[in-house]
């Protein structure tokens, strides 16, 4: 759907600030841009997905440049924003490599981060008036 004139007036807001907000709190960018239902769905779905991954004994990967795949997974983990930092601060996300659900948990956590990156790009497009 094309942007309405009302939406276009919002393009004066700095798109990069909206991106930062959208990254930090899933759905916040859409909420700011007036697409509140979408914002709430993203907030609930992505936070739940991330929490589910932690519950399944998934791990929040460290930034280890010497292990490129681990570093990439760490980037994906951080993609979810605030929930990541809350979990880190609370000491959750050590992961249990022998748990039968370990890999499932990692998949949920990584996918939540990557999906939030898509949400950020969508918010950027809306802020630019492309959608």
């Amino acid at each position, binding site marked *: *759907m094309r942007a309405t004139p009302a939406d276009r007036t919002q393009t004066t807001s700095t798109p990069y600030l909206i991106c930062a907000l959208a990254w930090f709190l899933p759905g916040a960018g859409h909420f700011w841009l007036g697409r509140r*239902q*979408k914002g709430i*769905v*993203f907030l609930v*779905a*992505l936070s*739940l*997905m991330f929490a*589910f991954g932690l519950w*399944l004994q998934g791990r929040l990967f460290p930034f280890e440049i010497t292990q490129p795949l681990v570093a990439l997974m760490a980037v994906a983990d951080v993609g979810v924003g605030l929930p990541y930092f809350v979990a880190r601060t609370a000491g959750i996300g050590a992961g249990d490599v022998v748990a*039968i*659900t370990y890999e*499932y948990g990692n*998949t*949920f956590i990584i*996918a*939540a981060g990557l*999906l939030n990156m*898509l*949400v950020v790009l*969508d918010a950027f497009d809306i802020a630019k008036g492309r959608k």
Partner: protein
Amino acid sequence: MTSHLGLMVIFSLFVSVVFAVLTRDDPREQIKFGARLFGGFIGAGILMGWLLYPLPL
């Protein structure tokens, strides 16, 4: 919760919801597209499971 099928269903549900809301603006379109995505994920998962069943030969 250790069921592979159960976890696949939950994962598919989350991804379908996010993609449907991300790519469609009309709520009815979102529901239709989300349901199709969800069905596609589950169907493809089950199909792949059966195709890989005889492996390793």
